[in-house]
């Protein structure tokens, strides 16, 4: 087997440069077709009916009136009598109709009788959840340097040891921190357009998982995965919520089968937010003991939160985040609420963990009156990964970009201009990444045409362009010479886009296939030119003997040597196998500067610095975009967005865009992105980037607000209400 490798740094023409995404004009001009844009002749519009109540049993469903609504073609209940509904917006029925209006009217004409059950949605208050009997058994995880004696009670020892360590600390900080549930808010809701050709189903599904969803359609429809083609050229946002065919995807296919017509079923915005995923909440009560330099000696926390009806919350495995002091006790309690189920949300658990624990670390700095930067720096010896040196270097770089040292003032001690104060805050993060399973098929045609096909998807990261860059670089061709085919389950299987694994995965399979294909082509060229195949290089559209440019063929001439048959080469990568092309684990440091109007509680980001490693960078332009985007999403959950539930009824009150607050173009301040890629990063291959930069903004922004105001606003998002409450002026 060939040795796969990346070109030496500095010798590339495409890799590690800034390339414009190949589908950019198509997207910007509206030519790109998303799942909801697929509109075969005769397509029916389907609509889901969401349950208006958060906890109830279905007593009856009457669809007779709905069937009579002009334009309604089919009404199909999704629930049966006696079914228990656990959250508002769970889907009760579907209506397929000729127009949007008729579908909506059909939904409105469905009559359902409910038996109301007790509702609980208050995840912020552990005591309330306990009183409502909605908590799971608290789970504890303790790590102590000292161990109990053989005959000592373990829990009693732990308690005594924690207390002893706290008392021995120079400073003890106690605090409450929290971060509310947010939704994914994909711009394109979940859904699909489904069409049948005989017993063959094509599902134009808005999915992050083109290769993995066919089987999910097949089983419930009583067909086999080989009868299903999942197709998705463009997806309007996923963020971790679109890995599955979903019950409504299957329902769409079923409606199409029963009506004999193509059917499009996209979730309404409110059902989308209520049902199609959210990010769990996390609340924590922390006691932290540190020495006089701010080095944490002991951590003791109780946390709680919800992932919906089945309980859940933020994993305690990432508490405290990145830092792992030698002595720590953490307890987590799961709360079951009548709310929709969580789904993976970009870097699951990490953003919440950062927001509720790096804030506590920052409060150590505030309590000691020392620079937050120094507290983070001094605690790097306890990080849970092997990146301490990377963090140090990145902190230095970030501080330089932020001008941290010259801007720093002690918490609450900055200059006040009118009612406005400013402050600095930071956070650090970690993520695994690394490539997912990926196979691809590269075809070199005798006329010089090159294509690669794989069942991957472009979540917005520029996957098509990344693939094109890898293949074109390998063949020494311009980017537009490669026809990149993704977005169909009929292509060789490639992994779901989650966990920052796509770029590494598709780069692996494509580099491997391309290197193998080139080696085969080089054999033919070598024979033709009378040189050794190993001496050939592909660059600038030619294959030539290295050191002798007179011996060369154009790419087209070289491909003509294939004769009548195209050359097809498959590339394959299995996650976890050692590879020189990819690796895993990144660090990352972020710093925020904010202004706070003490009279209104409004927080405005002034400047944000993100220093991020990601191994070898395939496309610097789209990589930077990922970081900009992550920071802006971070600003969103730090300052603006949260799911707001009515505690009486369990209604999701702000499940429309107009009420779900998100930052706009004028809200982001200045963002400085630093692609941290020393040679050591280039050399360890591709890692991945989607998750890491979205992790630290909550901590960095909350810490900046604490630094500006001198008080901790405990719960994110930092709305004017919470800021004023914390300031005591409301």
């Amino acid at each position: 087997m060939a040795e796969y490798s990346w070109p030496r740094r500095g010798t590339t023409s495409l890799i590690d440069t800034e390339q414009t995404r190949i589908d950019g004009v198509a997207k910007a001009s509206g030519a790109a077709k998303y799942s909801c844009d697929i509109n075969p002749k005769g397509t029916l519009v389907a609509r889901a009916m969401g349950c208006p109540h958060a906890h109830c049993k279905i007593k009856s469903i009457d669809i007779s009136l709905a069937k009579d609504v002009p334009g309604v073609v089919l009404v199909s209940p999704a629930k049966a009598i006696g079914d228990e509904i656990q959250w508002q917006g769970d889907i009760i029925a579907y209506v397929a109709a000729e127009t949007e209006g008729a579908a909506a009217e059909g939904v409105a004409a469905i009559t359902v009788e409910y038996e109301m059950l007790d509702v609980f949605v208050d995840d912020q208050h552990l005591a309330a959840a306990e009183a409502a009997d909605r908590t799971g058994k608290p789970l504890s995880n303790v790590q102590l340097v000292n161990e109990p004696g053989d005959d000592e009670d373990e829990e009693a020892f732990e308690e005594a040891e924690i207390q002893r360590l706290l008392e021995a600390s120079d400073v003890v900080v106690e605090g409450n921190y929290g971060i509310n549930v947010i939704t994914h808010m994909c711009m394109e809701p979940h859904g699909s357009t489904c069409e049948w050709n005989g017993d063959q189903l094509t599902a134009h599904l808005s999915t992050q998982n083109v290769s993995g969803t066919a089987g999910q359609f097949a089983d419930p429809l009583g067909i086999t995965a080989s009868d299903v083609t999942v197709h998705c050229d463009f997806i309007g946002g996923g963020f971790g919520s679109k890995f599955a065919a979903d019950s409504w995807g299957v329902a769409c296919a079923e409606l199409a089968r029963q009506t004999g017509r193509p059917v499009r079923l996209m979730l309404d915005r409110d059902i989308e937010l209520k049902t199609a995923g959210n990010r769990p909440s996390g609340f924590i009560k922390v006691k932290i003991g540190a020495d006089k330099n701010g080095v944490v000696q002991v951590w003791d926390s109780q946390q709680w939160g919800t992932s919906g009806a089945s309980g859940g919350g933020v994993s305690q495995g990432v508490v405290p985040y990145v830092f792992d002091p030698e002595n720590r006790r953490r307890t987590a309690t799961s709360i079951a609420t009548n709310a929709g189920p969580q789904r993976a949300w970009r870097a699951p658990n990490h953003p919440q963990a950062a927001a509720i624990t790096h804030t506590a670390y920052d409060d150590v700095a505030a309590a000691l009156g020392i620079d937050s930067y120094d507290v983070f720096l001094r605690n790097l010896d306890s990080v849970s990964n092997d990146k301490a040196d990377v963090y140090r270097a990145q902190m230095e770089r970030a501080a330089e970009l932020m001008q941290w040292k010259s801007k720093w003032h002690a918490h609450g001690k900055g200059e006040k201009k009118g009612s406005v104060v400013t402050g600095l805050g930071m956070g650090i993060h970690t993520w695994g990444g690394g490539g997912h399973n990926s196979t691809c098929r590269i075809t070199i045609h005798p006329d010089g045409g090159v294509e690669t096909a794989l069942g991957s998807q472009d979540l917005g990261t520029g996957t098509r362009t990344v693939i094109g860059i890898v293949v074109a670089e390998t063949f020494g061709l311009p980017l537009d010479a490669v026809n990149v085919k993704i977005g169909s389950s009929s292509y060789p299987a490639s992994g779901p886009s989650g966990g920052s694994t796509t770029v590494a995965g598709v780069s692996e399979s494509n580099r491997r296939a391309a290197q193998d294909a080139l080696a085969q082509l080089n054999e033919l060229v070598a024979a033709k030119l009378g040189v050794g195949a190993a001496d050939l290089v592909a660059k600038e559209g030619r294959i030539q003997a290295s050191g002798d440019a007179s011996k060369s063929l154009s790419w087209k001439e070289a491909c003509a040597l294939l004769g009548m048959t195209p050359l097809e080469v498959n590339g394959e990568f299995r996650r976890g196998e050692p590879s020189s092309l990819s690796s895993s684990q990144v660090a990352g440091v972020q710093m925020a500067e904010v202004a706070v109007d003490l009279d209104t509680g409004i927080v405005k980001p002034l400047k944000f610095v993100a220093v991020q490693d990601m191994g070898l960078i395939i496309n610097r332009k789209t990589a930077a975009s990922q970081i900009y985007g992550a920071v802006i999403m971070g600003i969103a959950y730090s300052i603006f967005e949260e799911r707001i539930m009515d505690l009486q009824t369990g209604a999701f009150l702000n499940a429309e865009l107009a009420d779900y607050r998100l930052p706009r173009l004028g809200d982001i301040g200045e963002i400085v992105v630093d692609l941290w890629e020393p040679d050591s990063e280039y050399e360890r291959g591709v890692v991945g980037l989607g998750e890491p930069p979205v992790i630290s903004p909550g901590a960095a922004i909350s810490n900046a607000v604490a630094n500006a105001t001198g008080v901790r606003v405990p719960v994110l998002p930092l709305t004017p209400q919470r800021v004023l409450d914390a300031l005591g002026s409301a």
Partner: protein
Amino acid sequence: MKAFEYAAPRRESELAGLFSGRPGATAVLAGGTDLVGLMKKMIVAPDRVVNIKEIASLYGISADSAGVTVGAVTRLDEMLDSADLDAFPAVKQAIRGINSMQLQSQGTIGGELCQRPRCWYFRNGCGLPTELGRMVERGDNRYHAIFGNRGPAKYVSASRIAPALVALGASVRIVGPASGEAVEGPPKNGAPVAQDGNALGEAIMPLADFFVTPRAPHQGETVLDPDQIVTHIHIPRDEQIASATYEVRQSEGPEYPLAAAAAALRIEAGVVTEARIVLGQVAPVPWVSEAAAAAIVGQAVTPESARAAGEAAVARATPLSQNRYKVQLARVSVERAILQAAGLETGGF
């Protein structure tokens, strides 16, 4: 959306008979930015939609020495662009604050004034206002009223321009069937059809009196009956009045402010001799604060006097369980609107 009939009259006179007197049966399409969304969610489900945007006489801005008249279907961006409205900075600042080019070029002044409450209980289908009152009281009322909220209506008046217009003493013209003359034609789908011979009448009233706090179901948020519409808004000219609108907006987007205030001040020889202070987003109607006006009249505008007026404005606020912070924001809004009207720094963002 429920299916509906549609009419687009071209003259005011054609309005006669197009409207049903039955609550909810007819909806007026003035801009659509609010109505169409409400119809999609079936919070509003009319039998007929009457598009008044094609009525030429309801469109445009005209000015003379007495004041400026704005037709109800004049687009907000046209108001922003109109030099005739330069004399009323409070109005332009309020429109600018909407922060969406699309809403500004699609929305009309009549629609903006008549938009329905943003209350999320209402928008989630809980109705207005009686059932709602109790729900809001016990529920999540972080964005609800801190004034005028003792009755069932606890939402806040949504209009962002009304506080400025009320502060400036604007009046509004209303048209509808006149007494005794209207004849309803044979019903078609429950709504009357146009019929010659229906008589129209008009009334003019101060905009301050146009908004009402409903006490019972089917009472609206304005004096309008189901068959009446706003046709024009008139702002009296007074060169000596300085005005401003200050909104506490969390973001730069079109989301509604958390609190707002408009101030119209007559300043003579450095002293405020007459003032009208109107708060927005704090009560079921644009909330005229006589206490704030009294506090600033007779004073020079200074940070201290503005602050005192702000404090006077909120002295009698009655916050609900979760919106005490809005009292602070209302106070700051008044303070900053006054400072801004007087051309002084507000000290905040």
